[in-house]
Structures are given as C-alpha cells and as structure tokens.
C-alpha cells in the first residue's frame, strides 16, 4: 500500500478541511504536553498554585476535544471520506479521546501536587518522578510528531519507549513502598505520590495508543493488542512491500 498524504484533492476545500482539523489536533496535543509539564513541575517543586492552574487548564483541553469531534462528524457527514481520508478522520477521532484522557491524568497530577504542596518531601523520589515525567512528555511529543509527519516507524518507536516508562514506574513504586515501611506516617502522602506516578504511567499507555492510530492511518493496519514485537513485524512487512512497489505506470 502507498503511503498516504493529506493534500491534492480535486476539492481544495476538502484539503483545507482536513488540514484544519489536523492543525487542531496538533494544537490540542501541544496544550496537553504543556499541562503535563506544568503538572510535573508543580508536583516536584511543591507549587500548589501551579497545580491549581493545571486543574483549571483541563477545561480548555475538554473544549478542544468537543470542537475536534464536531469537526470530524462534519467531515464524515459532508465529505464521506474514503480510504486514507477515512482512516485519518477515524484516527483523529480516537486520538483526541486519548489526548483528553492524558489531559485528565495531568489534571489528577495537578490535584495531587496541590495536596502535597506543604509536604516535606524526600528529594530522591521526586527526582525520579521528574525523570519519568520528562519521559512521558517526550512520548507525547514524539507521537504527535509522528502524527504530523505521517511517520509510522516513529509511532512504533513510542510504543517501545513505553516499556522503559513502565520500568521507571515500577522503580518508583518500589521506592515508595520502602518509605512507607520505614515510616508509616508517610503513607498518606505516599499514596498521593503513587496516584500521581500512576497517572504518568497511564499517559505513556495513551501515547502508545495514539501511536497505534498513526500506524492505522498511515499503513491501513490495525496493530492494537498484538504486542510490540508483532507490531514491529507488521510494520516492517508493509515498509518492504511499499519499497518494492514499482513506479506507477
């Protein structure tokens, strides 16, 4: 199968419609990325005010989800898109659901940051959280990049990064357990920390989902629920096929 593009419809307005909705997804993605950054910063620095900003900021993420959803419905109704165009609209509709959930996770972290603002924290645990936060933010950014560049290989790469994120998450959980065993008075705070860390881990999962939608859109293949290895194999197969396809006659 050929790689898809967005443009060159006979109807220029259709090109414009698809481009507009794609731009909206990318700016929603940018907003969500910022929310994650702020939430992690609020958590690590103990900045309750910033945490509250993040909680408020989620309203805008939700508004964008609805706007893009409506735009997708409008395109489906008016353009009856086919093939690559159809896959794009479906992929967008699914992507924004995951972006919205990522927004919710960021909001959750913001709320935990507010709770923990007054808590005297063990530095090392929060340093690890900072690293984890940076990694999941990179995943979100990379997958949005893959989406923007119609790059299915990078999308699969994001799924591979999720394994590293899961390992980091496990490490932080173990450390939290150690603190709680050492000093049961920390349990209440540590539970909040765990909630926040779990939220970060979930953001990684949502990014992986978005990567799968990118592969679906670009390659026309559904690679959900098949595992990373199978996913990479599928992708290699279609890349090979594409490279060997003779020039259009």
């Amino acid at each position: 199968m050929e790689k898809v593009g967005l443009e060159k419809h006979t109807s220029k307005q259709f090109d414009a419609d698809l481009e507009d909705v794609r731009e909206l997804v990318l700016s929603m993605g940018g907003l969500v990325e910022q929310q994650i950054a702020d939430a992690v910063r609020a958590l690590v620095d103990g900045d309750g005010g910033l945490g509250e900003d993040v909680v408020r900021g989620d309203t805008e993420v939700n508004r964008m989800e609805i706007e893009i959803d409506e735009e997708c419905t409008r395109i489906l109704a008016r353009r009856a898109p086919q093939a690559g165009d159809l896959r794009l609209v479906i992929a967008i509709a699914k992507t924004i659901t995951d972006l919205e959930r990522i927004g919710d996770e960021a909001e959750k972290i913001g709320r935990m940051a507010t709770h923990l603002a007054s808590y005297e924290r063990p530095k090392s645990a929060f340093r690890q959280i900072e690293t984890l936060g940076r990694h999941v933010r990179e995943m979100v950014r990379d997958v949005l990049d893959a989406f923007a560049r119609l790059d299915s290989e990078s999308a699969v790469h994001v799924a591979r990064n999720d394994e590293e994120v899961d390992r980091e998450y496990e490490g932080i959980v173990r450390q939290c357990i150690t603190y709680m065993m050492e000093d049961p008075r920390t349990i209440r705070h540590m539970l909040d920390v765990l909630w926040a860390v779990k939220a970060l881990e979930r953001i990684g999962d949502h990014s992986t989902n978005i990567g799968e939608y990118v592969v679906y859109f670009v390659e026309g293949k559904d690679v959900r629920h098949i595992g990373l290895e199978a996913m990479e194999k599928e992708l290699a197969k279609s890349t090979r096929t594409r490279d060997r396809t003779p020039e259009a006659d």
Partner: protein
Amino acid sequence: MRTRDLTGDTAEVVRTPTTERSPVRQATKMQVNDLAVWYGETQALHGVSMDVLENEVTALIGPSGCGKSTFLRCLNRMNDLIQDVRIEGEVTFDGDNIYAPHVDVVELRAHIGMVFQKPNPFPKSIYENIAYAPKILGQVRKRTDMDELVEHSLKRAGLWDEVKDRLQAPGLTLSGGQQQRLCIARAIAVNPSVLLMDEPCSALDPVATATVEQLIDELKDNYTIVIVTHNLQQAARVAGYTAFFHLGEIVEFSDTDSLFTHPREKKTEDYITGRYG
C-alpha cells in the same frame, strides 16, 4: 498490470478479487480471460481478466472512458451491436465461451439480462412490459402462467404492491424509480441468472435510488449482479466486490471493505478519495 499482496509476493494479473474476508470459496459464474476491445482504431480494453463470483454483487468503478461500461457490455455481447468493434479474448458463462460461433445471442441475453442507465420501458402496458419477452422467447404460453409470471416478477422487483391495480396502465406513466424497477422486473421475467446494470440509479432521486439498492440486495440471493456505477458510495453500499478500472485495465479488484478502507494501489486511493486528474 501487476499487483502484489501484502506479503510482497507478486501476482501476474488482477483476476480474482484479493480479499480479507473469510476464505469461503464461492463459485465463479462468469470468467473473463484476456479481453481486449477496439472501437475502430481506439483500444478500449487492454487484455482484462476477471472472475465474476456467483450470487455476489460486483461493482465496476472508474473515471469516464476507463472501459467499465465496455467491459459490462461484453458480458452479454451488447457490443456486437456496435459497428467497427473488435473483440478478442474469452468470456465464459457457466464454463462456456459466450463468443463461440454457435451461441444464440438472444438466448444468451435471456440468461444474462441488462438494466440500463435510463429506465426504458416499452411504450406498452405494465403487464405487457413483463410479458413481452417470455412470450417472444416462447417460455410461457398459457395466460394463467403469464399472469403468475408477471406477478412474480413484479413482486421480485418490489413493484407489485404499487402497480397491482393498474397493470394495464402504460409503463411510461410510472415514476422514474418505478420505471427502473419495472425494467428490472422485465429483465427478471425471462429467468436470467446474471443481471448487468449500467448505472441503474443515475437518473433516480435518492429515495428511488435507495429502493433500487434495497432491491439489488434482495436479488443477490438468486442472481449474480454486475453493476457499473459512478457513485462510489453506491458501490460501497451494495457491492461485495469492487473492481477499479483505469485506462482500459483493472487496477485493483478487492472485496469492497478493503478497497474503500485501505486500497493497495495508489491510483485507486487517488480516485476514491477524489484526487483524480
């Protein structure tokens, strides 16, 4: 024309539909082998091969002048009527070559009926429109048998309830959609096994179109249908398999779901997404 499947293996020609549906082997009703057609000096089809599966709806799509109507007309030798036409290759119907010298074309067209773009009822009564061909072909002689056949055909075409009280009214007094269903009833009356439809809905409003599409859906249990349509949505709605024609060749022939969600060929993608030309 070469194509390839997803494993990277090349196949020589597109003849059987590539499919991702369950691998139920369906019987082949008609087989077209290396069909080439010239109108005078102009070649309209360049060695096209294709299997038409039994009790399926196969849609032929493609831009104007791509050869899809020419192809359709070769399936019951309608092109014989055109001057200067030259046809090479083979078309089989239940295994027999329909271009063999001994074939009776009139009888052939009774087996492979055709419905045209514009409804074209005879300027006769509704009853006579149905009864005419079976009478000429000598298929039905008794009046009561004929009454039964008329009723049966009109019922099959979903028109009976609308016209049963005015069978003697001229066919031309019906609405466009009704006229087209009358033509379908007329085609069915001689008991064909294949129905060829050349843009059967292009002159109809959306409601009449929906009725005819519903009819096509019901007919496929008993007939093999090949339909040429410019309306891609219609192909997507009614056909089990779709072939994309371009410049006298079949570019892609797949089950309809695959063709409209992830076509293999860029040309197909460009055409169905409106990037053609």
